[in-house]
């Protein structure tokens, strides 16, 4: 665990999406996408947020940047709560926190040139324009390994890996301190992924960046993060440092997750934990511990009470009735 100052702290973050129905569009139900998430990220650190579809990890990332309005909770960035500040104040903060999206094909406007795409943040924030803008865009492209003759081209002329670099260049253009990386390599080929991950690590060192790395791929998260949080159905079930988590997984879901990932080494055999049932929907979460319907170690109290996230060892938090 780093002893650096905390850059970002999230407290009991919640996001409930209303499901509208009826003639008047009243809320007939809610999608409990994020339901009470808390964690801290230290300056210069990379925290990994891992979970399967519907766990809410992407929503957490979006809420932190206020791209989605949180329903409840606090988001403390450099000590200040930004969860409910108004648009004008948020605009001033945006340069400090940026995001790289998952789908490099969809996150770039197909009708804009690279120069316009990477230059847009600086343009709309009044930082540079004209020739100065062009110079800075070129600088950024070089940092991510592209070159001048890429500037006037369109996104569809580039490969997935290159497009992701453009996305990173755009995210860096405002000199942010904090970047949310939302599944940045999930749609890339294995070898391109390696290049992109190396680049992200280099940039972090050079520019002293703090990352929130969101992914469903535990191997990638392990490679990039110092601290890892595991999410299930809108809640964090376990947080620990990478070393600690890999040494011992305490939550049954984490154990199942680790056991489910195919390992590229046929000599290694592991305990087979195959979870039954399906990944449930966040519309109607089970009562008590959300994992109880699929948990191989469920006990009666799990159906009634939701377990709290408790620090069971130094820096290792688990939300499970069995682990106290």
């Amino acid at each position: 665990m780093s002893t650096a100052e905390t850059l970002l702290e999230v407290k009991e973050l919640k996001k409930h999406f209303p499901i509208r129905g009826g003639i008047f569009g009243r809320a007939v139900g809610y999608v409990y996408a994020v339901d009470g998430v808390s964690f801290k990220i230290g300056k210069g650190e990379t925290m990994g947020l891992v979970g399967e579809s519907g766990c809410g990890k992407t929503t957490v990332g979006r809420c932190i940047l206020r791209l989605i309005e949180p329903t409840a909770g606090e988001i403390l960035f450099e000590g200040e709560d930004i969860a409910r500040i108004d648009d004008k104040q948020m605009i001033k903060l945006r340069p400090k926190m940026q995001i790289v999206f998952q789908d490099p094909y969809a996150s770039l406007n197909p009708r804009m040139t690279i120069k316009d795409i990477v230059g847009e943040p600086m343009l709309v924030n009044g930082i540079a324009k004209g020739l100065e803008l062009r110079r800075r865009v070129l600088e950024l492209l070089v940092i991510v390994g592209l070159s001048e003759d890429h500037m006037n081209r369109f996104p569809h002329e580039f490969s997935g890996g290159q497009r992701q670099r453009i996305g990173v260049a755009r995210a860096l253009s405002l000199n942010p301190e904090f970047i949310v990386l939302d599944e940045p390599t999930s749609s890339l080929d294995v070898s391109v992924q390696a290049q992109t991950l190396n680049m992200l690590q280099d940039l972090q060192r050079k520019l002293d960046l703090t990352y929130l790395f969101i992914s469903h791929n535990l191997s990638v998260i392990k490679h990039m993060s110092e601290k890892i949080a595991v999410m299930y159905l809108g809640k964090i079930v376990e947080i620990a440092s990478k070393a600690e988590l890999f040494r011992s997984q305490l939550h049954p879901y984490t154990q199942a997750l680790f056991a489910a990932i195919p390992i590229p080494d046929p000599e290694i055999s592991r305990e087979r934990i195959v979870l039954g049932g399906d990944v449930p929907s966040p519309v109607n979460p089970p009562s008590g511990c959300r994992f109880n319907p699929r948990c191989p170690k469920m006990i009666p109290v799990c159906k009634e009470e939701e377990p709290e996230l408790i620090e069971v060892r130094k820096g290792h938090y688990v939300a499970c009735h069995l682990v106290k």
Partner: protein
Amino acid sequence: MSDILISIRNLSTYFYTYAGVVKALEGVDLEIYKRETLGLVGETGCGKSVTALSIMQLVPNPPGKIVSGQILLEGEDLLKKSEEEMRKIRGAKISMVFQDPMTYINPVLTIGDQISEVILLHQDLRKEVLALKIEELQGKLEKLDPTSGTARDFKSKIEELEKKMIDPPKPSKSDVKKAALKKTIETLKLVRMPYPERVVKQYPHELSGGMRQRAMIAMALSCGPSLLIADEATTALDVTIQAQILQLLNELKKEIGASILIITHDLGIVAEMCDRVGVMYAGVVVEYTGTKALFRKPLHPYTQGLLRSIPKLHKEIERLEIIPGSVPNLIYPPPGCRFHPRCPYVMDICRKERPPMFEPEEGHFVACYLYGQRGD
């Protein structure tokens, strides 16, 4: 050699596009043995999916065309077969499961209808219809007093029907559908689908991703194929669901006796599921051997690079190694070995001549001049 189910020899498939001719497959040689699981692994564009489509002859035409080669299924060349003949083979002898069940299942048909359709297309269900009728009558018979007149009638009816089993009569449409439905439910039970009687009446959107993929596997297995092709069948699924499906495939392997061709980019899946592996790069098979041998001692520089560039759950790596350069443009592939521009061990001959498959160790094939000379 009667152990070989499918033998692919010198298969080349090209795509004729506006920008040029994409040489997607160039002289692919592979063998799939009976009852084995073969993995075909590689990155995007390496040609693994095209290989599967070529076997099924589902390559979109235009712009694709199989320009040369043979695909021998139990001795017969599939490429010489007519469309009519191929239709009989698809779904029956060779079937395929695709990547994203939401996009390749018909959303307006129930699961039962879709699976039954395959059964009805390929199977002559006369015997099954007759068996069903006999079962029905026997069920009624059990409820009756055995000495009554009706019971004797039923008994004689049953005997009559049983005699017809040798050459059953042509059944009515509704009877055939019933028989097909019964088979459908059996197949769903085979794939461990929970509540199969309910699922057959459901539409795809009512099922979760994992269940849909199970239904698709059921559809693929419904006619007892010799080869099941799984083209990135678990890529779109969550990790824990993927584990379920992989476990299912492993169990089915032993139960149904079919060969499975697993196409994936995930080396972890290969390690867990496959007996043998073929590594593809830019339309060519570069290495081909048993799974353990591949991971223990990868021979081809591309395979080595690939293994070193993936983050591993079970090992700590400081920095991932990258393979410099990028995948070549298949319209203008590099001459000689297609990997040579990125190879750290490139030699003169690599730039000029395409390497043949060498066998430096028994059962371990590599297409690389590091392991032999031309003419070996």
